[in-house]
């Protein structure tokens, strides 16, 4: 690769990243200015993937991507020794439920109820539903 190619490559590469970089910097500047309190939980790309999933509810690859993100949030939070955000283990359990993996779903509903006592009534309901489905 000669110099000229190098310059051209640089020019081509610069075009798109500049706008993205601008946006990222603005984002950081905005947050810094707002002096946010520390986040309680790790969210990864939760909102983006939820948005995509809600935008096209029948698009199975988007649903699978959301499920993968939920699992990633659980694993990352566990690894970091932080509490998994409210509802995330249950949401992942519900994906398993929808896939017909009822016993794995029950494990997740139990885990949610143990981590968050506020969820016990709803998780008990989901466990009953999963048992009914598994017994069919």
């Amino acid at each position, binding site marked *: 690769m000669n110099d000229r190619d190098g310059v051209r490559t640089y020019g081509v590469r610069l075009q798109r990243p500049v706008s993205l970089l601008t946006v990222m910097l603005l984002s950081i500047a905005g947050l810094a200015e707002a002096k946010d309190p520390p986040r309680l939980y790790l969210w990864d790309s939760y909102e983006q993937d939820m948005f995509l999933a809600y935008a096209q509810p029948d698009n199975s690859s988007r649903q699978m991507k959301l499920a993968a993100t939920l699992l990633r949030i659980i694993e990352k939070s566990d690894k970091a020794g932080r509490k998994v955000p409210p509802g995330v283990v249950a949401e992942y359990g519900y994906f398993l439920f929808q896939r017909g993996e009822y016993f794995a779903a029950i494990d997740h509903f139990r885990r949610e109820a143990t981590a968050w006592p506020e969820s016990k009534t*709803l998780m008990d309901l989901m466990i009953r539903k999963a048992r009914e489905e598994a017994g069919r």
Partner: protein
Amino acid sequence: MIALIRVFAMITITASLSACGSSPSVPAYDYGAYVASNPRSVIVAPMTAQGDSSRHYLSIVAQPLAERGYYVMPVRLTQQLFADAGYQERAQEIRRAWSGEVAQNIWKLVDEDNHPGVREMAIELTEMSGADSVLFVYVLQSGHKVDVSEGFLKNLVDERMNHTINLDYLLVSDSGETLWRTRKKVIYTRGGGSFLQEIWNATYKASDTEIDTAIARDVNRLMIEGLRTKNEMSGSWYPGYPMLVGPYRSGYESDRAMRTPAPAAP
């Protein structure tokens, strides 16, 4: 994915965002019932199937509620349960009544018992889920209007469009009592003309739904999390009266104490 990151990053450069119907001289909000009820958990009420903005709003409501310190019932799971149980049709009825009241005082729906549907639904949903409170959010989109003062042709060139969005929040206790309510109207002018926005518009054209969701996300930040925004810093937004801090965030007790009015002197 990058496109979505961009859309969500966009909210920091919405320099022409302006809030209407709000002035700095707002009477102090009475948090008495909210403090007394002391909810720990929130379930998001069924969204109507109608309207993209309502549906998409579900993707951005759990995170701010959790970060405010509440347990949030899993949104995707509960919304599916609501749909299976036919709640969406009832939500649609409430929404119709709610929309009719918008020009006046929408909160009559609960306070004056004009529409018992809200109260009944709150009691049923909290019984089913064990949640302490229900958050009703109505996303009212007033359409995307071209700016006629600039001429139609210029609109085509600039893609200058106004997005007007109303967000009505209503938190109801498990006994059907109103705990907190607020509303925010936002007008966002697309292609507003600042240099940064021009860069934005030139590089990425977001869909109406993406813009509406990004604006709603910024409003959540303000009204649910009580966080200041860049726009507010510039004076166009005021913090208003956000949700109280929930039990899982530090500052829970001090926030409650601050919101409780001192007893009147005998």
